[in-house]
Structures are given as C-alpha cells and as structure tokens.
C-alpha cells in the first residue's frame, strides 16, 4: 500500500474518540417532545487546551460531514478530514494556538447515535423508531460534550452550511457560552427552495423498494435512492459556471452521443460516481433524518422575529457568504446581518467572490482563510484582555 507524505501544515495522525452521555434517566429532551438516551458522540480534537481553557473552538459539520475534520487516521489514508484546508498549524483555525473540537451530530451515521445505532431497549437498530431531531437538538447534544470536556466557554463556534446553522443556534441557545461565531454559506431559515430540494432527495430514498420503511439493516440498503438523493444535493452545491468549466458538454468515453440511455456526458458520469461513492459512507435513514432537521430550521421560530431571537446573543460574529452560492444565497446571510445590526451586536460580513457555488467553503480559498484567521486573532486577543 502506498504511504503518502503527510504535509507539514497537517495536524498529522488523529484518533477518533467516543463518549456516551445522557444515560437514562438523564435522557436528552428533544424539540419533538421525545427523549433520547443514551447518546454516544464520536468526536476528534486537535491542538492543546490552555490551562485557562480559553482557546476552545467548536467546528460544526455539514449534512454529509462528520467528526473527522482534519488530519489522517493512518499514513495510508487517501484523503484527510473534510476541512483539512482550514484546520492545522498556521491555517485559518490554527492548531498551534487553538484547541479544536469537532463531533458527529446526533442522527448521523459515523459513530454518533442515529437511526442506524442499536436501540438498547430493543437491541435492534432504531430505524424509523429513531425520534425526529432538530438543529437545536444537535446543539444540545454538543453542549453535553463540551460540559463533559470541562470547557466553560467556547472562543468560537464555526461551520458552513448546516454547520453554520448550528453555530447560529449555539449563540441563541447558550449565549453565555459563546464568545464568537463564524457562520459560513448558511441561513437562519430553510427556504421553500431548500425544502423542495431536500424533499426530492427523501422521495428518491423512500421510493427505493430496498428502503422497506427504514428497516433494511439486515438486508440490502436503498443505495439507488440514496445515490439519487446525493446527486440532486451535489448539483445544488455547484454553480452553473463551475459545471460549465469542469464538464461543459464533453462526452464520456465516446465520440458521439449514443441515442439511447447510456451515459453520454461527463457530467452524468461524475454525478453517478458521486452518488455511488456516497452510499458507501452514508446511511439512507440518516439522510432522511438530517434533511428533516435542516428543513425544520427556523431560528426565529417561537421568537416572533429573527431580530427578537438574537436579542440576548452575547457573541460577536463574522459572517461569510459566496457570490455564486445559490443554495444559501448571500441575501440569506444579509438577513442575519440585518437582525444582528438591529440588536447592536458586533458583526462583520463579507461576500467572497467565487465561482465554486455552495461548496466554496470546503475548497482551497485564501480569502476565507485570511478572514477567519484575522478575525480569530483579534477575538482571542480581546477575550484574553477581557478575562484578565
């Protein structure tokens, strides 16, 4: 097996950790009214926590992400964690200065309790008996982890897409615990278009005969449905221009179109590949549950307005959007900025010009790196001066 050379600005070899919390009778009370426990959370940490415990940053992952945000598990790993471009020595989230935590969200399928986990009451996978969760429920579970790690206050909560929603939710649900937040390429409320795209994905999974009402863990999983769901999702992460430049109308391994249903175009082949490879690492039921949590997300819910929802927030903000992101367009970020302004909360906002669509925040991006690094540097300086 080929061993890769681990780059010097990588956090290097990392190890995933697990903790089981919310053990009955201390189950987590969910927004739906149901209770969930025990809850296992898979998480990773990078860098060192200071003795003052003032340098902890919680990174929050997106729909298909997990707790493996940076580094490699073995020297043979083909790919590092999903935000390796942003986390490491000297990177945007500088592990020489900060203690970084990332956990797999509840409902997920990468080690945290979700529909594919064994329900201790039945000793079978939860399947559709898993309770429906919200973004706030994910954040509540993360709070248990942060308490368990003995961290009184987070210097920053940061993430893109669904991670950005969790960051926003953190500042509202636990205002005293958050010094700053960096929500990226995100929204405070899932729009009709956002819900519509998710619903197509869910219907593709449900229509797959192998889905079997969520009870497929002993048989063949609904991979076709999940692959189609991923394909529609993937389209929404790109942009017209990015697709045009990457694929155009180029044909896949052929001289002319086939005049039948064979794969003609490169973009078709690419999407099929993306869909299929996703089914090897993701659970279809998790996809259903997490997209539902996304669709339920409305930060203003129960507050009357977004401005009212953000009223007691103590954190300062750096909000980043991307010009070609049509999944969570800049206007959605500006809505958040507006509500923060109306509350007199410290906020900076930048729309980065980029052709890479929603996925921009995951790609190599010197502008984003610079914004985050400079913002965190000043936040940390201020926070330390304030505490002393």
């Amino acid at each position: 097996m080929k061993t890769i050379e681990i780059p010097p600005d990588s956090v290097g070899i990392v190890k995933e950790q697990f903790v089981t919390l919310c053990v009955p009778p201390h189950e987590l009370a969910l927004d739906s009214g149901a209770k969930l426990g025990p809850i296992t959370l898979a998480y990773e940490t990078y860098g060192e926590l200071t003795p003052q415990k003032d340098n902890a940053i919680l990174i929050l992952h997106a729909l298909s992400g997990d707790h493996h945000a940076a580094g490699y598990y073995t020297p043979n790993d083909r790919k590092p964690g999903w935000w390796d471009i942003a986390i490491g020595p000297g990177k945007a989230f500088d592990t020489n200065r900060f203690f970084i935590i990332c956990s797999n969200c509840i409902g997920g399928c990468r080690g945290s309790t979700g529909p594919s986990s064994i329900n201790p009451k039945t000793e079978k996978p939860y399947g559709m008996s898993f309770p429906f969760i919200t973004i706030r429920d994910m954040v509540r579970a993360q709070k248990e982890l942060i308490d368990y790690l003995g961290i009184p206050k987070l210097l920053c909560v940061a993430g893109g897409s669904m991670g950005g929603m969790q960051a926003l939710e953190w500042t509202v649900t636990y205002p005293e615990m958050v010094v700053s937040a960096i929500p990226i390429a995100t929204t405070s409320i899932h729009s009709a278009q956002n819900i519509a795209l998710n619903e197509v994905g869910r219907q593709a999974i449900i229509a797959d005969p192998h889905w079997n009402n969520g009870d497929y863990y002993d048989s063949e999983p609904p991979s076709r449905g999940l692959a189609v769901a991923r394909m529609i999702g993937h389209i929404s992460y790109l942009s017209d221009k990015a697709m045009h430049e990457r694929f155009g109308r180029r044909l896949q391994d052929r001289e002319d179109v086939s005049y039948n249903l064979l794969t003609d175009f490169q973009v078709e082949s690419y999407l099929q590949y993306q869909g299929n490879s996703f089914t090897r690492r993701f659970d279809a039921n998790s996809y259903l549950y997490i997209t539902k949590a996304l669709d339920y997300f409305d930060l203003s819910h129960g507050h009357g307005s977004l401005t009212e929802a953000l009223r007691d927030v103590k954190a300062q903000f750096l909000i980043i959007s991307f010009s070609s992101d049509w999944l969570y367009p800049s206007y959605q970020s500006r809505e958040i900025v507006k509500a923060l302004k109306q509350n007199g909360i410290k906020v900076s906002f930048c729309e980065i010009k980029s052709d890479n669509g929603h996925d921009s925040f995951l790609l190599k991006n010197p502008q984003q790196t610079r914004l985050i690094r400079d913002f965190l540097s000043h936040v940390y300086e201020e926070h330390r001066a304030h505490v002393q």
Partner: protein
Amino acid sequence: MSSKNSESRTPAPRYDHEIICRIVKEGSRVLDIGCGEGDLLKLLQERRKVEGTGLEVNEEKVYECISRGLHVLHGDIDAGLADYPDQSFDYVILNETMQEIHKPALVLKETMRVGKQVIVSFPNFGHWPARFQLFFRGRAPKTLKLPFEWYEGPNIKFLTIKDFNNFCQAMRYTILEAYYFAYGHPVKFWANVRADTALFVLNGNKTA
C-alpha cells in the same frame, strides 16, 4: 505622483482624520460609511475608544479592515443603512464618500435618521484651481484633490461648499460646525474659493 503622495501621507494621520478625532467624543458609537481600509476607524478606536462599524463595498478593503480588528460590513450604502434603527449611532461619518453616491439626498436623510450627529466631508468643486481650469482652459478640472480624468475615477457628484450650504438650508438641516481646509491646512475666509475640502457636522434629525 499621486501614489507617492499617499505613501508619504500614511505615517502621519490625515488632516481631516485629525479633525474628526477631535469632534468625536470618547466611547461613542460610530458608523463610517465607505470606510476603505479602515484608517479613520482604527484611529478613532485607538484614540477615542469608539465602538465602530465600517461599511465598505470593495472586497479587498473589507479583508484589510478585518485584519485590523475592525467590524466591517461588505455591501453598498443603500442596503447598509436601512437596517439600522433610529439614532443607533452617536456619529455617522461620510468622509469623502458623498461625491461617489448616486442619491446623496436620500443617503443623507438616512444618515440623519440613524445618527445623532452626521459628519460629512467632500472635495470642494469651487476651489480656485478647478474654477481656473474650467473657466480659462474650458476643461473639466483635474487637481490634486480631484485627480481623475472625466471618464474615470469614482466621483459622480460635483458640488461646492455653497451648494452644500444651500442644500442644508433647503432641507432645514442644522449645521453644528464647519471646517474648511486646503492642502491639509485650515482656511479661514473665502472658503468656497480657497478650500479644497469641506467638513460639516450636522445635527441628526429623528423625524427626517
């Protein structure tokens, strides 16, 4: 030539920045519209401990502001002002920005709503070298203060000190203070001819 000038100017704060520093009270809330790379805001933060926010349309300049630890919002003026509640700031600053705005009357009205006081500065088109060029040479003025050819440069509104005074009178805006200067030095008389820059402090008007 002009880049050399701006370089030699960087170490010592600009004359207009000095004046604004004197006007702004310690610990106040300030909104700087068209804040650029944040020179003025940084100065105000250091000297007057203000709680400042900048508004800037240029992405590169936004990065620069963040790297200096300033709070800055990327966007244009129209979107930037409307969101703020009445009298959110002690001072709203339009430092050499007004001549680049499409609808200055509307923006001024909004700044008066948002700020308790409004600090406005602009290059004076009535400055004598500009008059001289227009009158004797029959050409659009190109001076140290207005260094651009007519077909380039950001300025789209050309006004004189007299124009602005008349405007304030017509709109019933109260001018609290006025400063005139040329080449970085105060101008005491014949300002509309002798000053290349004017700076006004207006009283914010909640009912505007």
